[in-house]
């Protein structure tokens, strides 16, 4: 079981967390990660951010990521909720949730969801600064490296990686 959602309105954290908790009664471990909009970049103050996505491809990619991570870490459930449109400092941008029998799979699964999302899902951020300028955020190589660490040598032999062998 997995679920993904792209929403143009603010993410309701309390109801998302409560809903995921209620739906996963059998899980011994639940992890949530919330990515939040920063109000500064170095000395520059960011007043707003716009998040653009590729409708259709984006949802399909998020669904693939959620299912891939669920299967890989033997999760009971995985959820991705991502905001689009214009937002301001402090707003939640993304929420991922994992439910598993034990915490190690839940933590690792949440990290893998974020690493894959950041490198694969077609979203783009544009920052608007206090001085009236704006710029598209550049992709970071560190995000690519973070996603690569989930590609296990075992995969080339067709053997699924296990979290107790490869968790960071």
């Amino acid at each position, binding site marked *: 079981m997995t679920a993904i959602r792209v929403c143009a309105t603010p993410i309701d954290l309390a109801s998302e967390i409560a809903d995921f908790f209620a739906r996963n009664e059998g899980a011994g471990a639940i992890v949530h990660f919330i*990515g939040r909009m920063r109000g500064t970049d170095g000395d520059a103050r960011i007043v707003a951010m716009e*998040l*653009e*996505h*590729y409708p*259709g*491809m984006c949802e*399909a990619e998020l669904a693939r990521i959620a299912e891939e991570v669920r299967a890989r870490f033997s999760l009971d459930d995985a959820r991705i909720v*991502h905001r689009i449109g214009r937002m301001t400092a402090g707003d939640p*941008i*993304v929420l991922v949730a994992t439910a598993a029998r034990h915490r190690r799979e839940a933590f690792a699964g949440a990290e893998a969801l*974020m690493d894959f*999302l*950041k*490198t*694969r*899902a*077609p*979203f*783009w*951020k*544009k920052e608007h600064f206090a001085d009236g300028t704006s710029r*598209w*955020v*550049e*992709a970071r190589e560190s*995000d690519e490296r973070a996603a690569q660490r989930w590609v296990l040598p075992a995969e080339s032999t067709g053997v699924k990686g296990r979290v107790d062998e490869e968790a960071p």
Partner: protein
Amino acid sequence: MTQAKTGEIELVYFAWVRERLGRDSERLALPGDVDSVARLIDWLAAIDTDHADALAARERLVVAVNRERAGPDHPVRAGDEIAVFPPVTGG
């Protein structure tokens, strides 16, 4: 997005590619010799200065054919939906 007519492709653009082009999509007749992603980008870049400018930094462009990421040798056919965008920055 509606289905392109026979012989046409639907192009969709995002982020700074869209801004530099001044449009989020366009429908173009596909020349017979444009049969791969690499050839398509070369052909598009030759249309006018807006296209040339938006598509200049090839190493910073990602292409998706029918909503799947596609490398330079990936085939391009009439009826395809082809997206051109920068590396993704969500999350």
